[in-house]
């Protein structure tokens, strides 16, 4: 770290060596740290706790990748990014991966040259209103002229404009920089309605003093597949991140949990589980990692389901149901290609 601060004065002196860019995977290994872009604070998804340790559903993905690559789930530099900086930080190489409620859209994938390595949460944009307004639907004619708080720098602005255009009603957008501020404005009455991803709405509502005074409207006006992303063109690195996420999902499917993983890793009758945990086959080698990579990734905080329950599941204050984010075997959309 001291090298970075010294770089300006001493680059010439060789005290600060630039990182040789051979590929992100090699960079990360050489650096011994994973630079992971996260949001500046969404309860349940990415938020520093009172001790300054980042916690959350998105953070767990970063930690799993760090554990798989570096064998240390704390060898991460969490780089807080805003809606404005997240893509340029990734494009310019400041961060190795972005795990920050980012919606997978075609233009981001194709035009901005990013690679979404999968979806870790299927979300949709929803609305929250105060119960006292008596609104029950985001399509009712009562909402004409409503003031809506939106968090800027997201797809929500565009979806909102489209939604009101399609129902032919007027509205007043009130753009706010961060989710926390949007809630403050909504609570203070600066807007009647607050819109963002439904998961975040649930999280914010759970945080409120009297959650029962606020209702989530049933309409979901967009598809928001949220997932981690990396730069285009570095397929080796994209594979590492993609299959780390897939390993977490497969672990849930196969019933590998943080509790039984040590036992399972000794070898079982299930060949896929053995391939996943490295007791059989050479999947780790294919990724330029060792055989235990997936085992380490899963041992950090457990499988996908455990991470979900621990951070945003029904047992937590945020209390999200699995819904479409259940395993495909339970009728949800969470699905991983096979480990073979």
């Amino acid at each position, binding site marked *: 770290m*001291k090298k970075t601060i010294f770089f300006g004065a001493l680059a010439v*002196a060789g*005290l600060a060596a630039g990182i040789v860019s051979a590929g992100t995977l090699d960079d990360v290994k050489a650096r011994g740290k994973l630079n992971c872009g996260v949001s500046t604070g969404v309860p349940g998804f990415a938020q520093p706790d009172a001790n*300054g340790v980042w916690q959350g559903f998105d953070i767990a993905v970063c930690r799993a990748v760090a554990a798989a690559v570096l064998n240390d789930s704390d060898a991460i530099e969490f780089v807080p990014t805003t809606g404005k900086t997240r893509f340029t930080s990734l494009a310019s190489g400041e961060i190795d991966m972005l795990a920050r409620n980012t919606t997978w859209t075609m233009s981001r994938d194709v035009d901005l040259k990013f690679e979404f390595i999968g979806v870790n949460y299927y979300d949709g944009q929803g609305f929250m209103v105060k119960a006292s307004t008596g609104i029950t639907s985001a399509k009712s004619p009562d909402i004409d002229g409503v003031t809506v708080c939106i968090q800027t720098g997201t797809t929500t602005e565009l979806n909102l404009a489209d939604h009101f255009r399609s129902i032919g009603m007027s509205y007043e957008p009130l753009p706010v920089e961060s989710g*926390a501020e949007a809630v403050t404005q909504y609570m203070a009455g600066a807007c009647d309605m607050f819109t963002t991803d439904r998961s975040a709405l649930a999280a914010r509502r759970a945080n409120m003093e009297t959650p029962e005074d606020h209702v989530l409207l049933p309409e979901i006006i967009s598809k928001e597949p949220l997932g981690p992303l990396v730069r285009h063109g570095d397929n080796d690195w994209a594979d590492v991140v993609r299959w780390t996420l897939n390993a977490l999902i497969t672990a849930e499917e196969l019933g590998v949990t943080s509790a039984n993983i040590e036992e399972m890793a000794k070898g079982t009758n299930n060949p896929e589980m053995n391939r996943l945990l490295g007791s059989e086959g050479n999947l780790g080698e294919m990724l330029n990692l060792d055989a235990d990579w997936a085992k380490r990734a899963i041992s950090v905080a457990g499988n996908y389901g455990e991470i979900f329950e621990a951070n945003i599941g029904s047992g937590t204050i945020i209390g999200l149901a699995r819904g479409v984010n259940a395993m495909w075997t339970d009728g949800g959309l969470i699905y991983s290609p096979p480990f073979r």
Partner: protein
Amino acid sequence: MAKNNAAFVRHQLIEEQAPPITERGVVKWVRENLFSSPFNVIMTLLSLWVIYSIIAGVAPWFINGVWNANSVRDCYDILDGATGACFAVLKERFPQLIYGFKYPSTEYWRPNTAVILLLFALAPILFRKLPRKFLLFSLIYPFLAYWLIWGGTPLVPVVAFLGFVIGIYCFRRFSANAFALGAIIGVIAANIFWVLGGYVVDANETFLALQAVPSRDMGGFMLNILLGTIAVALSIPLGILLALGRKSNMPIIKWICVLFIEFIRGVPLITLLFVANVILAFFLPPETSIDLILRVIVMMTFFNAAYIAEVVRGGLAALPSGQYEAANSLGLDYSKSMRFIILPQALKISIPGIVNTCVGMLKDTTLVSIISMFDLVGMIRGPILSSTSWNGVYWELFGAAATIFFVVCFSVSKYSQWLERQLETSNR
């Protein structure tokens, strides 16, 4: 003998009387200062009303303030419907407000020491009466502060410092004959030393090492002070150079300086911070990764330097041209006449302006909260306000932030006014 013809002449002095009640003491003061004319009466009553309504509004809120609670809900429970502040958030999150949420709590003494030493380091620069020897400490201070704040082995700043010493020594030694030769030799010597020192440092990473704290872990008001101090310290020399360049009679140098100054002064700081945060990486070689804090410092230095350059230019322009002519007629060359005649006088004139600019810089460091750095304002707007327990505690936090800034900036500007008076008397 002579008969007193006058009807009445007092023979002894009347005893001195106390002035009428309306012409003395509190009454006189009140009458003259507060109620001297109808307009003044109205103004006084209006002011009293303003003061009353502010106090009536704030006092219950302040007095009922809750200092012990675990969350904002606890606060509401304790207040039980009464108006009152929830100062508990300040108590619980005080370390976060000051040091950010990642600076290791066992190491808080280090930034504290650095700030206290800063006062000592500034003293000889600001108070001319102190012995000149103390200036040596001011020279060492940046390196010491670096070690204290960032940690790691003290060899890094020591090597850097010695490199500068060697470079300057070589420059002094050789520049007597030729300025350029001296400068080149100085730079080369310093660099050789740094390269060699680099090996020594690499071999002794743990020598006397403090726990290393990366720049990203800095936060809170400490980050504001850090950014402000470094940007100010770097921008003053740069600003003076720019001002001299702008007054130079070499057209190319002059135009480069003019363009730089006018460009920087023409755009808001926030756009420069966007550049630092968003697009600067595109202009640097792909393999480098310069820390965000360093990029921000560079931009803030440029920003402040452009403003300081204008202040110093004012000082240079205010100097009578006789001074320039006198220096020339003594046969002093450009650098000597600037160093010994012009700059000391010009800087003396511009000190209040420079201090104002620097206070402005310290205040502007709050803008980094917009580019996702967790300074004092960033801590409040980000982690604290979005945390489950303190959601919606708005006034207390911003009030505290405003108070902290007020105390620091007010003392600095009061000090500058004092300095101004000191310099004024010494001029006469």
